[in-house]
């Protein structure tokens, strides 16, 4: 099933994005490898501060001072975005890759009418004139389900509700039919009934336009409903990556397991929720070895010393399933207590 012969649309290789702050170097993204294939929805899940948003901002090349991409490549459709200059990037941003944000109200310009903001995108990338741009903007507003689009087109952002603003953002993001849409917590600021509307819209739009979607969220429920493949991030690195079915059925990284066990699930009441003890490490002062080691129960159960000494690498666990954990990786003296399943190739 995971047989992806096609070329990835986006191939992030060993991406490192650091922020040089007064308190020290914040290693927000530290060696991320990630592929996005054409037309798929990739979920990027993790808790606050794990680097999921910074990863997406790096793809858009929107990292600003004191942040910097220090290493790695972001290959989009054959070109390394890290090496492109600003005019080249302008041609890609909003045109081939576009983004929607968590706070739609603050992402819209408060002093322009929504139709003008949408047609600006069309003007920049497609040289559409004022009249044609406005007509297309209204068409897009209709498409994303804004009622009474002709008159709402003249509205200012403050006249819209949260859900409507997010619809406008989506209309703007889709204006140029991008190859890839990055949605950074698109529904976190919205109420659940509105969230359901927006998720439906993103699903419909993906079908209509065939764009790939990177969906960034902390909500595993949203991941289960939307994503096809999932990458779990923790403290600046990807710890597990697989298809969505496997992630929920057979998570192998102790962090993923803990995360899934710690959320209350509607209709399945348990007396106690699982707990991941402790808190997320400070990204300035990262623990040596595995970043999850200080909170990891499996490390204690198996009495592993390597976890606090050496950083594990992202290894293939089975086909289409990668994990970064010493439970499954051999190194010198260290023998993995749990073996990774053999891939189809190795069996032959």
């Amino acid at each position, binding site marked *: 099933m995971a047989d992806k012969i096609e070329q990835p649309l986006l191939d992030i290789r060993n991406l490192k994005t650091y922020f040089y702050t007064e308190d020290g170097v914040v290693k927000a993204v530290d060696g991320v490898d990630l592929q996005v294939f054409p037309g798929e929805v990739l979920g990027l899940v993790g*808790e*606050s501060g794990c680097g999921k948003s910074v990863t997406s901002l790096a793809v858009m090349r929107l990292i600003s001072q004191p942040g910097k991409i220090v290493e790695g490549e972001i290959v989009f459709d054959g070109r390394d975005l890290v090496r492109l200059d600003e005019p080249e990037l302008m041609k890609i941003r909003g045109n081939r890759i576009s983004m929607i944000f968590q706070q739609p109200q603050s992402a819209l310009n408060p002093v322009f009418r929504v139709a003008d903001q949408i047609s600006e995108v069309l003007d920049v990338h497609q040289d559409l004139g004022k009249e044609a741009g406005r007509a297309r903007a209204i068409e897009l507003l209709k498409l994303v389900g804004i*009622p009474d689009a002709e008159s709402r087109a003249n509205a200012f952002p403050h006249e819209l*509700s949260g*859900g*409507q603003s997010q619809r406008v953002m989506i209309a703007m993001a889709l204006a140029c039919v991008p190859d890839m849409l990055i949605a950074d917590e698109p529904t976190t600021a919205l*109420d*659940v*009934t*509105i*969230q*359901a*509307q927006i*998720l*439906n819209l993103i699903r419909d739009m993906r079908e209509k336009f065939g764009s790939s979607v990177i969906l960034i969220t*902390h*909500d*595993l*429920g*949203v*991941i*289960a*409903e939307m994503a096809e493949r999932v990458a779990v991030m923790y403290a600046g690195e990807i710890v597990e990556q697989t298809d*969505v*079915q496997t*992630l*929920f*059925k057979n998570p192998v990284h102790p962090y993923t397991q*803990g*995360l*899934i066990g*710690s*959320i*209350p*699930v*509607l*209709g399945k*009441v*348990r*007396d*106690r*929720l*699982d*707990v*991941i*003890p402790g*808190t*997320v490490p400070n990204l300035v002062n990262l623990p040596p070895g595995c970043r999850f080691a200080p909170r990891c129960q499996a490390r204690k159960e198996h009495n592993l010393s390597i976890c606090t000494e050496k950083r594990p690498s992202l290894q293939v666990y089975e086909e289409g399933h990668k994990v970064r954990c010493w439970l499954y990786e051999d190194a010198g003296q260290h023998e993995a207590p749990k073996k990774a399943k053999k891939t189809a190739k190795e069996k032959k």
Partner: protein
Amino acid sequence: MDTPSTKAERKPDLLVIKDLVKYFPIRGGLFKRTKAVVKAVDQVSFTIREGETLGLVGESGCGKTTLGRCILRLEEPTSGSINFMGQELVKLGSRSMKELRREMQIIFQDPIASLDPRMPIGNSVVEGLAIQNIGTSKERFEIAIKMLRKVGLEDYHARRYPHEFSGGQRQRIGIARALTLQPKFLVCDEPVSALDVSIQSQVLNILKELQRELGLTYLFIAHNLSVVEHISDRVAVMYLGKIVEITSRKELYLNPLHPYTKALLAAIPIPDPTLQRERLVLKGDVPSPINPPSGCRFHTRCPFVFDRCSQEAPILREVKPDHQVACWLTE
């Protein structure tokens, strides 16, 4: 699984709320006349039984926080009655109210905003005791340490300042602070919505353990129905200032009767990709509480609306034992 709710049914009522109303006037113009009113809480009645957790769930702006604050008289109710352990709170003078606040405390959503940044948290935690003139400062400090231990913090934390703590730790401090006066009743206003999931479960577990240990009664306010279902014995669903349904958590999940409750349940993303669910997606936005729709307030978004809904407001009625609904469909 059933025992907590059946046990709770036999318990006496701790808090009886009747026809509670809170309107906020919007003033403007030359003489600051009232131009309109926000009907934040409108004719709400319910009871909370001793030792139970009543979950109060609803979307932003539905009035759930205002309701919680009215119960503690942090907000003066416009009308209605709040009866706490046989005492009528609405008419109580400020001195008697201050005394009664020992019995009722609140945990806020944003713990950092509710802690004094320039006060070591050991002092913040026992400020309630200081206000009530209980104990010497040394005794109070000892109580602070005892309470911090209870919520899983260490002794040395007492001398630290709020900015030195993570979000989850701050919420624990908020819980410790609320518990120092040994209250009977606790309003938890979105206590975990600002926290990451792995931290959220820590706080939820602590709240459950403390309830068992200290026999606390909770009003648990949240927008996340999964969290509410996890912690509550009974659940009240609020929409635009009105309670539309109230029943045991099991009944609410298995047999929701109000269309809004059904939509709310259907809208919650469930972390199980194999699950095929019927999608009941509500159209439109939540109307403004300034000019709420006539009749049933949900009629503008209700998929099952008929004539009567826009003309007459349904009242909350018991349709089954321990299951109240305000909807014309069930009449």
